[in-house]
């Protein structure tokens, strides 16, 4: 397992994405999966950067590892901010018309749509979000 810890601020988003991309490319991950993974990382990292420690800042750790047969990437985000289970967030109603659509909840919804497994735990004062995606 490889991991990287950065201060959870938007400016560090690219660092985490580059870290993940490097490992995914080493495994010849298809371009489509690469883009979907990038989207997932952005949405989770931005959430941590925006809410976990607000108004302070703190650390976010991203871990990546791989499985074979079938090929899958396992990603984990860990922060020590306020307890927050993103799986409890209600999905936006994508059938509503424009005036009724709200701008919230889209990020987590995109995460759910782009990974195959998603699990949350709060352990030892840490938010831990596990994600698995087959490719």
């Amino acid at each position: 397992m490889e991991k990287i810890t950065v201060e959870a601020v938007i400016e560090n988003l690219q660092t985490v994405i580059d870290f993940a991309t490097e490992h995914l490319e080493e495994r010849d991950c298809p371009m489509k999966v690469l883009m979907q993974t990038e989207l997932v990382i952005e949405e989770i990292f931005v959430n941590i950067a925006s809410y976990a420690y607000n108004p302070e800042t703190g650390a976010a750790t991203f871990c990546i590892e791989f499985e074979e047969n079938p090929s899958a990437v396992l990603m984990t985000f860990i922060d020590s901010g306020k307890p927050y289970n993103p799986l409890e967030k209600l999905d936006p109603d994508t059938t509503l018309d424009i005036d009724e659509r709200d701008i919230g909840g889209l990020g987590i919804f995109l995460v759910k749509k782009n990974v195959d497994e998603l699990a949350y735990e709060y352990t030892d004062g840490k938010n831990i979000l596990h994600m698995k995606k087959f490719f």
Partner: protein
Amino acid sequence: MEIKKEQNGSALTIHVIGRLDAGSAPELSKELTTALDGVTDLTFDFAELKYIASAGLRVLLVAQKRMNKQGSMKLINVSEAVMEVLDMTGFASLMTIA
């Protein structure tokens, strides 16, 4: 991200180039605040937009709500990767995509 604007009377075309993510979306949002004044026909040209995340979708939603009051808005030259995100979130049916 880079933004290029072409204004022709009350018609405005905005080319969004690169990535519309959490880092760049605030810049587009700020640009639109004043750029849409007096515009009745807004076109986003996404020919060179490679990536969009929820932060970018929010900017589009705000723009669409504003344009519904003062004219019309459409998206053109949407790439497959961006279209996938628009489809997934139901945005494809909220917006005119040509």
